[in-house]
């Protein structure tokens, strides 16, 4: 089975968010980047488990600049066989999806896995876009994925519950919690990753369709109003009359 896993970097979860250039650019100074947790913990690890069970290969693909190579090496250290970096700065989801699709068309992959969203722009867009480019079904928010021959069985979140579905490969699957357990790379993995192929390919030149014009931070919260723990009637009264939420 040939598996492609889309890997993106994302700012570490504790990053303090601020902007520069008149609030038109995310201030990257001092920001530590990690592999987007959904891509790493769920998509990549499930890809590796499927390869271990059925044979085949796990390739990662990233749309990004040389700055992304540390996070790509981490994915290789966790166990991916090889990586490709499409050499262009990612600008929006439509560009990223078009670039990955251009690359993936060549590879005849059986499964394309990605995280349900990145934790910076939270768009949840690339998977669906990619599936449309590749004319494959898109199983979103899957928390379980098994493959038997050429048929995949998946559990996916639906509004208010869970659905078990079946589809023929090839597929695009966005992965969420439950799919796999996080793997911590060991020393051997980290050493091996240095020698694994990290191919850099030029971008096809896909255009972006959207752009962020400016950013703003939410207004700071006013101070908390403390309520006597013995007087929950007062809290209910405030929630009703002051906050008007019940």
């Amino acid at each position, binding site marked *: 089975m040939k598996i492609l896993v889309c890997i993106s970097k994302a700012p570490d979860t504790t990053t303090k968010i601020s902007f520069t250039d008149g609030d038109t650019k995310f201030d990257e100074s001092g920001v530590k980047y990690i592999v987007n947790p959904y891509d790493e913990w769920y998509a990549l690890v499930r890809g590796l488990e499927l390869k271990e069970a059925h044979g085949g290969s796990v390739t990662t693909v990233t749309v990004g600049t040389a700055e992304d190579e540390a996070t790509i090496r981490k994915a290789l250290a966790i166990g991916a066989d090889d990586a490709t970096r499409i050499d262009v700065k990612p600008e929006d989801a439509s560009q990223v999806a078009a670039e990955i699709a251009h690359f993936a068309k060549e590879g005849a992959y059986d499964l394309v896995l990605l995280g349900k969203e990145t934790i910076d722009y939270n768009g*949840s867009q690339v998977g669906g876009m990619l599936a449309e480019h590749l004319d494959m079904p898109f199983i979103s928010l899957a928390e379980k994925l098994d493959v038997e021959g050429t048929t995949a069985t998946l559990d996916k979140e639906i509004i208010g519950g869970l659905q078990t579905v079946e589809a023929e490969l090839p597929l695009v699957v966005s992965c969420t919690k439950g799919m796999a357990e996080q793997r911590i790379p060991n020393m051997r993995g980290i050493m091996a990753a240095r020698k694994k192929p990290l191919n850099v390919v030029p971008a096809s030149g896909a255009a972006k369709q959207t752009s962020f014009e400016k950013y703003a931070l939410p207004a700071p919260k006013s101070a908390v109003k403390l309520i006597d723990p013995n007087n929950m009637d007062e809290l209910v009264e405030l929630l009703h009359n002051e906050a008007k939420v019940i």
Partner: protein
Amino acid sequence: MSVLVYINSNGEKIAKNAFEAVTYAKKIGDVTVVTNGKADDSMLSQLGKYGASKVMVDRSFEGIDEQQLTKMVATAAEKIDANTIIFSNDLIGKAVAPRLSVKMNVGLVAGASGVPEADGTIPVNVFSGKAYGYVKVNTDKKIIALLPNSIPVEETGSEAPVEEFEGNAGESRVTVKETKLPEGDIPLPEAELVVSGGRGLKGPENWGMITDLAKELGAATACSRPVSDSDWRPHHEHVGQTGVAIAPNLYIAAGISGAIQHLAGVNRSKVIVVINTDDEAPFFKAADYGVVGDAFEVLPRLTEAVKKFKASN
């Protein structure tokens, strides 16, 4: 301007986030709604109240297959020459809107939190709710997927005519084997009231305090990540940066410290109540109302107070 809204009408009733999407669309132009399945005309025509001037329904297929819905919405968009297409950014919108964006070659704004600004940019939540961004779409037409619970529903009209149409949805390539919808539970992502518990509650055996309060309020239940990681509660209740992001009117957090990753999933809540024994818990900085006290005493007391309030109102 011609605006098309996709709504899901496959359930018993139409969900509030569909009314939000129609309300939102009405602020942009003349609204046509497109949907599929077997819903009664009478149920669909009520969308007129929120501003739809027409409802188009494809009765030839049911369900929420994302490839079929993409084709159907594209057919409808062409038919009415829609300039803007609106989805609710729920689990269906997240699967269909990106596909449609590629199919129609139209820019998508996912997770819009408000109506377009005077300069045409659209506000969205970014960095897991820690900031807003304003997005410009570079194509003539646009697709907007609206975050649930970000604008109030408004009734502006009366019933809308319902007409059948052929959406050329094609066949589904995915077979549904089983659908599990836990009964009585309120789905978390769309809930207006949420009661949530953290590690401070010590163990799953103590969750009755959370579910009792939730039942009394008609709220959904949620939890912090360590709680679902320890299997005290199911995964789908985990809120935060790596769980579900929610924006209810009221979020009550008991025994949760308020780590930055937790706040990222709940900071769009309109009102936050924090119950914690530690008056220095970081969550109090993000709270509107705080109770410094033992959740084991405060939660039952709050449940009683809500009961009393419900009885007298």
